[in-house]
């Protein structure tokens, strides 16, 4: 494993283009993350078409760099103007903005960038070891297990990602159903093409995910286009001095471990990855009363936590093909487009790609430290760009991205339709992540299901053959039960709060 990792570093350093990609990716990520309304997920979706034609490890590095930069960048406007750039930085607002009000912006930004990159770095170490272990274990999988694994991933995401299990499941099944359009994966019979030549290969993935994650988000932002923008100035940034770093190191280590584990569990994602370490540090602190009023440990916990969660979320995505939340779901789509088959075989068939990507992530953590310090100085200007200019420009980027993959005008229409669909799904709390997952996993699930049933001559016994199958099924059932209980308790909470407001 260490040998592979060293080879990975050699691959990355042997070609200067790789470094350029990391620097651009992290920088673009920070900018996108810092602009309120634009999320890391959206950035990955829009950048996807550009990776087409790159070698897979370079394309993947670009997308992951944007992800890491984006999660970090979200904290900058949280500190400067009390608005998180991405939801994952909501926990940074209280302490970050309190420091800005005290005139200590540069201390806040310094702690922020140091915690983000240290958190990312430590979390990447966990990523490398955990992935190798899980991939080893997952090599025993056959057709039946692949089908069950795809179903398990979809069930977990559907059951946990939205407030209502039924709605999440509906979104997941809808994605699967839409994935059956086009030639069927076994015998090539055209299904649900409505005599349209463009639908022969089904809905292409890139326009669909640009629609679901970027265009729908633009529609959301258009609704609030008239909200005035807070003005802010350029600031100075520097790394915190040694005594400050010594003070926040224990916080960063604890928060990274917690954040990484939360990120690796499909469902909760980076938002909880920031909040839970924050609460934990507040509980452990000798001065919990300072939290929320400018405690640097608060910033360190939240920002190390959310970046650690982002990297933790890569573990199940890369090893099992089960993404934890929106950004990694889009990343999974990216893997498919780059011609890599997500899942356990990725490690077996393409170890050089996986470890080159791991090496790139390590480098990206250092790039983040440098770029974060420099870019934060001018972020004040960027976050105040008017949405009246920004949104049309982003929309055009989406349109071009949808077009570029197949040079097809039809695909712009597909992106638009999925954008409208995504907008309504989010408005009605169905969630868009299960739909994308269904679209990606549909063909994998169907071909493995049918292959398994051919092997077993139509007998369903093949899905209960060994303890592995049975435990996958049990995990699926457990996640459903957990999801239903979770949504029931959420309903109870909202019922009680409704009752309170009515009194």
């Amino acid at each position, binding site marked *: 494993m260490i040998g592979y990792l060293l080879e990975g570093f050699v691959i990355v350093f042997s070609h200067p283009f790789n470094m350029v990609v990391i620097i651009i990716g992290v920088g673009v990520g920070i900018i996108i993350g810092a602009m309120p309304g634009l999320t890391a997920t959206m950035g990955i979706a829009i950048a996807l078409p550009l990776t087409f034609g790159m070698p897979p490890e370079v394309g993947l590095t670009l997308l992951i760099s944007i992800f890491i930069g984006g999660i970090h960048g979200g904290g900058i406007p949280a500190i400067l103007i009390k608005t998180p750039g991405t939801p994952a930085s909501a926990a940074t607002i209280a302490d970050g903005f309190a420091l800005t009000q005290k005139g200590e912006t540069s201390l806040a930004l310094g702690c922020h960038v140091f915690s983000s990159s240290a958190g990312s770095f430590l979390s990447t170490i966990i990523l490398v070891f955990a992935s190798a272990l899980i991939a080893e274990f997952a090599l025993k999988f056959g057709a039946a297990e692949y089908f069950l694994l795809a179903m398990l991933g979809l069930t977990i995401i559907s059951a946990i990602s939205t407030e*209502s299990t039924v709605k999440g499941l509906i979104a997941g*099944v809808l994605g699967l*159903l839409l994935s059956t359009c086009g030639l069927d994966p076994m015998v090539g019979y055209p299904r649900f093409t409505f005599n349209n030549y463009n639908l022969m290969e089904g809905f292409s993935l890139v326009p669909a995910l640009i629609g679901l994650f970027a265009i729908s988000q633009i529609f959301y932002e*258009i609704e609030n286009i008239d909200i005035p923008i807070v003005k802010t100035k350029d600031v100075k940034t520097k790394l915190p001095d040694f005594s400050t770093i010594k003070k926040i190191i224990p916080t960063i280590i604890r928060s990274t471990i917690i954040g990484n584990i939360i990120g690796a569990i499909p469902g909760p994602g980076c938002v909880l990855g920031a909040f839970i370490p924050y609460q934990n540090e507040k509980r452990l602190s000798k001065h919990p009363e300072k939290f929320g009023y400018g405690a640097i440990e608060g910033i360190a916990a939240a920002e190390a936590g959310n970046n650690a969660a982002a990297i933790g979320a890569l573990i199940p995505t890369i090893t099992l093909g089960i993404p934890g939340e929106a950004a990694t779901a889009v990343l999974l789509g990216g893997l498919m487009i780059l011609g890599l088959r997500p899942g356990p075989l990725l490690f077996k068939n393409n170890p050089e790609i996986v470890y080159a990507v791991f090496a790139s992530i390590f480098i990206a953590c250092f790039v983040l430290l440098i770029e974060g310090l420099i870019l934060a100085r001018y972020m004040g200007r960027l976050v105040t760009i008017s949405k009246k200019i920004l949104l*049309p420009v982003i929309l055009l980027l989406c349109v071009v991205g949808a077009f570029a993959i197949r040079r097809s005008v039809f695909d712009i*229409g597909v992106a638009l339709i999925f954008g409208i669909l995504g907008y*309504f799904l989010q408005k009605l*709390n169905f969630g868009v992540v299960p739909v994308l997952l269904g679209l990606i996993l549909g063909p994998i699930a169907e071909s493995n299901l049918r292959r398994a049933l051919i092997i077993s001559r139509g007998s369903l016994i093949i899905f209960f053959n060994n303890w592995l199958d049975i435990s996958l099924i049990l995990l699926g059932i457990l996640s459903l039960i957990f999801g239903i209980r979770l949504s029931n308790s959420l309903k109870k909470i909202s019922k009680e709060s409704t009752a309170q407001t009515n009194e």
Partner: protein
Amino acid sequence: MNPKSKSDIIAAIFLIILSLIFFWNSRGFPDSKREIGVGAFPRLLAGLLIILSIVLIIHAIKDFTLSKSPPLFKEFTKGHKLILVVIVALLIYIRILEPLGFILSSFLLLLTLMFIFGEKRKMILFFVPIGFSIILYIVFAKLAMVTLPEGIIESFFF
């Protein structure tokens, strides 16, 4: 019944209709008796979607006092109108992209949207759309090796 449950029911009915369309279209798929065929998986999913939608309707009727979240469209605001405008603009863009070429049609799209969103400064209304369209054309042509649709302007310069 609160409006939130109402929009859930409308969504469920829409999903049931969609499933029925898939069911209807799957007739005539070649299915063999020995192994599961072309139509089995989609039909299974369409059936599942119908069942889940019915569960959603039952939930919505049962829980009508529960949610205090606002309805989908409490009123038709300016924002919603702008979204409709964007959709129409994109539909027109899809029509004009190949005849007019990328730069001209993108210029028109950006100009229209920025103007409708309320940007008034003439310099910005002109230079941002034209500059961005040209940069994007070059980036995609040179870096991603994708030639975007060519029209009058592109044939002059590139």
